[in-house]
């Protein structure tokens, strides 16, 4: 069964303390791995799409990387405004149903 699993469930950082979020997947023939940011009570906001192992994408303090089994979202020198839930998602094997992980809730303290 296709699955997307994120860890940790929650992460508390001090401002400036870099860290990484993990997203592991068991989808065969990956046709895209998506990262989103979600603020409380709002819809997810698109961040990145990765398609092949070794690919990297960057945006401000965020960098997403992809291997054959997992993706990482690296956060460098985070600020309190980076506090949010980060979601990863992938389309099911051979179909268009998108499977989301449960998310990592990031808290950055000033």
């Amino acid at each position, binding site marked *: 069964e296709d699955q997307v699993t994120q860890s940790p469930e929650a992460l508390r950082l001090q401002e400036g303390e870099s860290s990484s979020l993990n997203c592991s997947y068991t989808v065969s023939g990956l046709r*895209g791995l*998506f990262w989103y940011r979600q603020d409380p*009570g709002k*819809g997810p906001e698109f961040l990145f*799409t990765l398609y092949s192992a070794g690919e990297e994408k960057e945006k401000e303090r965020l960098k997403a990387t992809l291997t054959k089994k997992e993706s990482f979202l690296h956060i460098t020198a985070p600020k309190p405004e980076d506090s949010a839930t980060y979601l990863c998602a992938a389309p099911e094997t051979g179909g268009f149903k998108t499977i989301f992980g449960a998310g990592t809730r990031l808290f950055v303290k000033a």
Partner: protein
Amino acid sequence: DAGVTQSPTHLIKTRGQHVTLRCSPISGHKSVSWYQQVLGQGPQFIFQYYEKEERGRGNFPDRFSARQFPNYSSELNVNALLLGDSALYLCASSRGGALPSEAFFGQGTRLTVV
């Protein structure tokens, strides 16, 4: 440019009632997907429509149905509401096409069933 718009933003319904949620995609996007999100969980896929045809269905009962109109807007219908249907319902639009592409979400409709 307008993003994805959903209406209403909040809704309170009684068990057994029916509800219709509406979504307008980003201009030029031909695909609309619907998700249910409960607190503390990731969005759960309900449907995807592309060019007015259903292209994907999640593990939801037949009480859930949807359709897409010629202008690519979409409706999600839920019949015989249960307390467990209380959730944030999200609509996402994407370009569509042969391969999955990134989705852009609306602000959601918060449905409360009492």
